[in-house]
């Protein structure tokens, strides 16, 4: 394309008065003032093996992600600003407050791995279960629904405060809340289609902790992904192992795929935050000290504990022995994964782990 050089930048050649427009009755004379106004022109991203992905667009200035994005308008990254545009309440304007290098690819993966509970889950594979097991499954569905709902409510609280400069993150989080909606839908369908119903609501200790994390998105991500999310992933794996039919297998399997993305983003972001913000590691140590107390208390009192034990034990009787052993082992795995992730992130917790969580390490 023909371009002309202007202060080292390539700008479009089609400038005002380049021909064509003139006064015709009934047709307003165009100004074409917008022509030639581009910060970088001549970009030609070609589709590759996977089409054109979001990360492919990070070329030239369009790929420059600043540490601070002061612009409080909806100016797309790389577009020219327009003077005089009033600001909007985009309060998260620092890269370390939300960034993860993986966000763009996770966004595309989420779209590629979409699934449809209404038509893709083999609902006809559901068969009646013993009453105690059905109740346990329905209770777990109810609690997991509240986990997903909490994720929706905390993400949507922060999402519209995140600057346009970090649009990859906003877009990934849109897929995360959509995943949550789909999991809620699938779990509700499971609970209401096999002779059961929903269980009793959770008291919500950890849900409250997540929803009350208003010190910034990173704080929310710590509780949502590092603490709750790591546990939730372990629960989903346990449920997949103990699935009673193909419908459950598909729901839990797909949820694991979806939450793997959520955790990848969450862990990546927390690590980025710790490595790019002075003092952040110390803050997270404090947050995790509190988070571990809440998590340990919930593990002790939550109905997830007996419900999962019943599922793993094949009923109440087995739940009192092998089922609870399996559950305790699952929690032990959660704590080990949590400690390993904390170490990787740069906030080691092994020495300071709350005793109520530490006791699970014997399993």
């Amino acid at each position, binding site marked *: 394309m023909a371009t002309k050089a202007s202060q080292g930048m390539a700008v479009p050649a089609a400038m005002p008065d380049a021909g064509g427009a003139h006064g015709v009755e009934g047709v307003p004379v165009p100004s074409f003032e917008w022509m030639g106004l581009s910060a970088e022109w001549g970009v*030609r991203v070609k589709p590759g093996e996977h089409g054109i992905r979001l990360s492919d667009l990070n070329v030239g200035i369009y790929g420059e992600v600043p540490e601070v994005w002061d612009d409080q308008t909806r100016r797309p990254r790389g577009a020219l600003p327009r003077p005089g545009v009033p600001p909007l309440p985009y309060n998260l304007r620092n890269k370390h407050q939300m960034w993860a290098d993986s966000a763009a690819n996770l966004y595309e993966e989420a779209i590629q791995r979409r699934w449809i509970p209404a038509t893709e889950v083999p609902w006809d594979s559901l068969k009646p279960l013993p009453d105690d097991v059905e109740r346990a499954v329905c209770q777990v569905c109810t609690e997991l629904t509240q986990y997903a709902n909490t994720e929706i409510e905390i993400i949507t609280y922060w999402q519209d405060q995140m600057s346009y400069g970090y649009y990859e993150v906003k877009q990934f989080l849109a897929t995360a809340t959509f995943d949550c909606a789909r999991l809620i839908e699938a779990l509700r369908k499971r609970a209401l289609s096999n002779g059961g119903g929903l269980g009793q609501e959770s008291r919500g200790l950890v849900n409250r902790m997540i929803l009350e994390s208003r010190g910034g998105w990173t704080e929310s991500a710590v509780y949502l992904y590092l603490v709750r999310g790591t546990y939730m992933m372990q629960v989903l794996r346990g449920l997949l192992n103990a699935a009673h039919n193909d419908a459950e297998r598909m729901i839990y399997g797909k949820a694991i795929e979806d939450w793997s993305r959520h955790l990848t983003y969450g862990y990546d972001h927390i690590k980025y935050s710790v490595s790019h913000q002075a003092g952040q590691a110390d803050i997270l140590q404090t947050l995790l000290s509190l988070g571990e107390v809440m998590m340990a208390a919930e593990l002790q009192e939550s109905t997830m504990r007996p419900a999962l034990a019943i599922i793993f034990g094949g009923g109440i009787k087995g739940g009192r022995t092998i089922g609870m052993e399996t559950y305790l082992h699952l929690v032990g795995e959660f704590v080990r994964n949590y400690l390993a992730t904390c170490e990787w992130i740069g906030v080691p917790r092994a020495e300071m782990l709350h005793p109520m969580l530490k006791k699970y390490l014997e399993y």
Partner: protein
Amino acid sequence: MSEAPVKQQEYELDTSWMQHMGEWGMKAEPGKRGLTLTEIQLGSYGEIPEISKNMSGRPRGAGERPDAYRVGAYGVRAKSEIWLSNATFLYEEALQRQWSSATDVPWHTIEALPDAMEEAECLLCTFFNEVEFVAGDVPARWVANTTPDFLEPRHVLLAQVMDESRHMDVFRKRALANGGGLMRMSGATSGFVGSIDLARDFTEMSTRLHISGEGAVLTMFRMGELFGQNEAEKVMYRLCAQDEARHVAFGVMHLRFLSETAPERREEIEFYLDEAEAQILSGVQNPAGTQAETSEALAILLGGGKEHYDEGHKKLLVIRRRQLKEYMQRVKTAGFGARFENGRSTVPQQYESAI
């Protein structure tokens, strides 16, 4: 997970929660469209409260706990504020019609355009890149503020956030795929009083966002066959139009529900429509509007070049007329059509003169 060690120990198992569960004995069966949200609106699970007292985030129909934390500071708790009759359908359709901007748009069909045409397309893409996520940011905010008793509309709004995210990305991809780039932002969606962003009532926001704002954009997307220069652009506009039609349907059907169930709010809604109509053609939020510089870009694309601007402008007038016609149809469907008969609205006159 590795093998659990077997210990000969019996643990205490609290099963008291089994006495406090939701209604039991539900057996939803898949219908001809599978097991949709409609099929599971059974018994108490299908009872939508007129006013929700659920402040703990409890899934609708689940057993209550007296000691549950009151964590949901939900502002939207009246059914009339957000409900619509076809939310389950819109949500399920959204799931069925998800698409990928990376792989479902035939990017290889894009070929170099004359400079003015490429600039025009890139200006349009910059505009859409800028405004599409308004319809993501704002509905997301309202989801957090709505009780989960209204699961179905919340789910439609979350699907909308997802759709808008994809729209934001597809227009960015187009702008950077053909030798062009992003251009100057429009500033069309800033925080002015009466804007979509600042509405403090859901229906007010929905009227502005879904009915007037997205309605105008939907008409444009549907005309993408006219101004798309290649198959990739035509597919892009076609897929976006599919999504946008659901969002507009949400607004129309919600407004209809509100007008039927909360007639005391009708006059208030008429004022929102007055405000919207005052800017329907002159506002910069409408990419085909008289004041929007994207109109010039559209005329270039519709005409097939800068040298055919006048011809393109004539086609632009057809789009504007169609925007007005479709707007009137939506408002009529929503139950507010009398304004076009009783002289309150100037849209019929605008429609007649927009030739």
